């Protein structure tokens, strides 16, 4: 079981969190009607061996979405920051 250090609550068990998927690509702008870009963002995922950027929600805690960098081989977590403070790659603006 992973132990995830929530920036708001401290280190907690994985069971308090919900995996929220790949964080490498955010959504295109909402007004962007380009099917390919949306298809990429919604369906296409890398499956890296090693460092992986991903989202977790502290669902049974502060309910904050977190941006986590985790190694897919060792499961070691390198960093956990609030998703709203993460790099632009975590999400695009909606316009």
């Amino acid at each position, binding site marked *: 079981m992973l132990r995830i250090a929530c920036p708001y609550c401290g280190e907690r068990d994985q069971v308090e969190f919900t995996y929220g998927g790949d964080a490498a690509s955010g959504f295109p702008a*909402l007004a962007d009607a380009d099917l390919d870009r949306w*298809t990429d*963002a919604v369906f296409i995922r890398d499956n890296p061996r090693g460092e992986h950027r991903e989202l977790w*929600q502290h669902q049974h805690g502060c*309910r*904050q*979405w977190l941006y986590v960098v985790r190694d897919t081989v060792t499961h070691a977590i390198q960093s956990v920051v609030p998703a709203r403070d993460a790099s632009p790659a975590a999400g695009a603006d*909606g316009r």
Partner: protein
Amino acid sequence: MSEQTGRLDRGGRIDRSRPMSFVFDGRAYRGFFGDTLASALLANGVHLVGRSFKYHRPRGIYAAGVEEPNALVGLRQGGRHEPNVVATTVELFDGLEASSQHRWPSLDFDVMSVIDRFSRVFASGFYYKTFMGPFRGAWMFYEKFIRRAAGFGDPPLEPDPDRYEKGHAFCDVLVIGGGPSGLAAALAAGRSGARVVLVEDGAELGGALLSRPQGGDTDAWLASAVGELKGLPNVRLMTRTTVFGAYDNLVFGLLERVGDHLPVPAPDQPRQRYWILRARQAVLATGMLERPIVFGNNDLPGVMLASAGRSYVNRYAVIPGRSVVVFTNNDTAYGAALDLKAAGADVAVVDVRGAIGAELDRAVREAGIALHAGCAVARANGRKRVRNVEVCVFDAVRGRIGATKSRLPCDLLLVSGGWTPTLQLLGQRGAPLAYDDKRAMLIAGAVPAGYRVAGSAAGEPGVRQRVASGMRQGGAAAEACGYAPSPEPGVLPVRLPDEPAMTGIAPVAVIPDPPGAGYRKKFVDFQHDVGYDDIALALSEGYESIEHLKRYTTLGMAPDQGKTSSFNALAIAAQMLGRPIAAVGTTTFRPPYRPVSIGALAGAETGLHFKPTRRSPMHDLHARNGAVFITTGLWLRPWYYPMPGESIREAYVREADAVRKSVGMVDVSSLGKIDVQGPDAAEFLNRVYTNAFDTLPVGRARYGVMLRPDGIVIDDGTTSRLAEHHYFMTTTTAGAGAVMTFLEYLLQTAWPDLKVQVTSVTSQWAAIAVAGPRSRDLIASLVRDVDMENAAFPFMGVRQGHLGAIPVRLLRISFSGEMAYEIYAPAGCGETLWRAISDAGPAFDLVPYGIEALGALRIEKGHVAGAEIDGRTTLADMGLARMASKKKPFIGSALMQREGLLDAHRPQLVGLESASGDMALRAGAILCEPGRHQGHGIGFVSSVTYSPALGRHVALGFVSRGLSREGDVIDAVFPLRGEVTPVRVRSAHFVDPEGRRLNA
């Protein structure tokens, strides 16, 4: 009752003042407190304890601990029956009942042992080749026979009457193993102030020290170490507890056997407790297990590990044989030889090595033990017990064997093929093992961060070294947690004896057959009956990878997980392949190290406690009013309110009828409710709903639909604008959690710039829908501060006011198609609110209704619900295409334009009714063109009901191009029951399609 013929008069760690009686296979025996079931059986001269899994060969007790491969028994009766219990780990209690397994009709005479004669037929890969190959059909025929013949034990058929618990624990240093190195590690860490948990599998601390003769220096050390540990408040000692799993981030799964050593658990105690323990550092002081040597008939009862022989004689005062041959490739077995000799047995040693150390040699001679150096046991003879062994001259270096030199008579053959450190937990973490040539053992390679290995698990040879290693690793672990090392880290409470080092070994795993002999019964994995020949066969067929070899032969895949067999299989494969052991590699280790009962993993989360139950604020009131409840998701909701003698059908028809004719009230508190506030609230809702919400005036509500980013509908509901920057959203009961999470996701990841807060207020508000032509009059009689007139408070209007003294939000919205209001009040006022409306009801012919009537009313209106919003349907599929705004983008607006989602042949929502007579329809039925009942058909039935308004059965469903097929008759097919019902396609709006009733 028989005598304990194998019991010594004195010694051992048993309590002779506490005799215990027990029953094995219907016969009564006696033992003592401190015995295991295995030691008590041996004390009574019982060696034959089971039949083997595949060939039904007679098997005896082979070990004295957790590694035991043969002595699996069924324990207890009825609901407490447990199969596959390892007899060497069962603490004897008075009245214990056990039975042998894999035999019929009796252990002594087993019909299936005939398989042994035809064992060629059942060779490795037999199942695979016979049943997965071209004759796969054979499996269907033989499966029952084979499963009965080869099953592992019998499961209990009654519910388990015992309780189980789950616990959570934390510590700085977890020490796994209560032997000399574990105790030392706990002492070193404990003295420095670290929070220590020491976990020991057995009932007693001491590990291998308990198998040494009593009363020596090691016992004094043990007493002093345990005494000091018990006095440290920061050290927790957990006996009868197994660490069965090592997970990420130093999280461990522990199984504490609280009541397994008792006939039934103590009244206030669970039987077992599953602990989830988080440590900061872990010290593996898990010891090591002795390995067998593979030779002919090496599975005969009376053949046993040397360490087990030593354990039985010293710990349990049981002499498992009077005429003993010790067969070894290493020094450690001499400890057993000397102790058995001292206990009065005749002992001879057969050692594959040409010579042994001078000190050991002298000890053997002084004890009067005959030594056959440079020899090997090629085969054991006997039927249900070993009678003699064939000894041959053996060259351990070249692996060459001579003809049989002599037959040594014996009733016990102790075997030692060397030792394997217990590193399964490291293996579970993916840590590599390294082969150490000198010690002929697999030791830890790179140790993962946070882990340390101490004592014999690290290959340390003697007690002194093991204690010192424990001290070192325990101290270092505490230091890594930030504790200063204890002032005198290396000091032991009591001096330990100097002992001759027992480190010599010749790495021999298998004895070749003597010239001219061909012994086929040379077992590597006793528990799964995998032999030397099976490994040879697998390799010859190309299964050379150790992982493939394992799967092909099933070696190491039995409940014991290959504790005594894995290493030998590896060594044999390496030898056959002509590769070094290191190059062959090891198989993956996975939890659990020992079997864990499902009961322990479930803990108290069974039955009603499996999931939480959510109740509305008015639940108790409904119960008092005679409601029948139904579970929907986590919620317990009123299903219907039967009058005396009414059936469910009669009740809900009456309830729905009242809604259409007068007025009804229903508890809708389970609806998801989300408070949306902030300057960007309007913009936010515009993005998440397919329709516009910025244009919604304050004081109005609007029906909204949300899509997933992929263009599929996720949920629907009504959202009200309470103020410029304040909206009140409702979701479906089932969708509440997912919608909340989705909104948080969007706000925190995609649009952190939006100034919006969302808060789940589902539990904060009680909600009642009042529906029917007289709903307005009823509410107007109770609400004084809101103008209820149609013009002042039109359909989709929202007002805040008071119902009596209760502050309420009134929404004029409808799910039933009737004029209706939803009334929201603080949850604590829920009961008062229900009572107030209910008390005013008689004058308006008010009837409470449940969700059966609610469902019927919405189906009559063609409103979609969970059965239609099933994660596969689009707006257009449900006839809601007009809900998609063309003026603004929204989540899903791009991908709802995908080709597949625009396909004109997609199933569309329609109404359905029986085409001949009034037949009930089935949800889930497949819709097909008449007579063409193939494949997926052209759609399916989603919701069904008997319509009280129409007086006949109706349904909603999806039909390819359904909107253009009104009037067509198609078939509703339900293959599970062989039913075909012709149905007519029609509009989904069965009642009041113009919606006149809403706006009245």
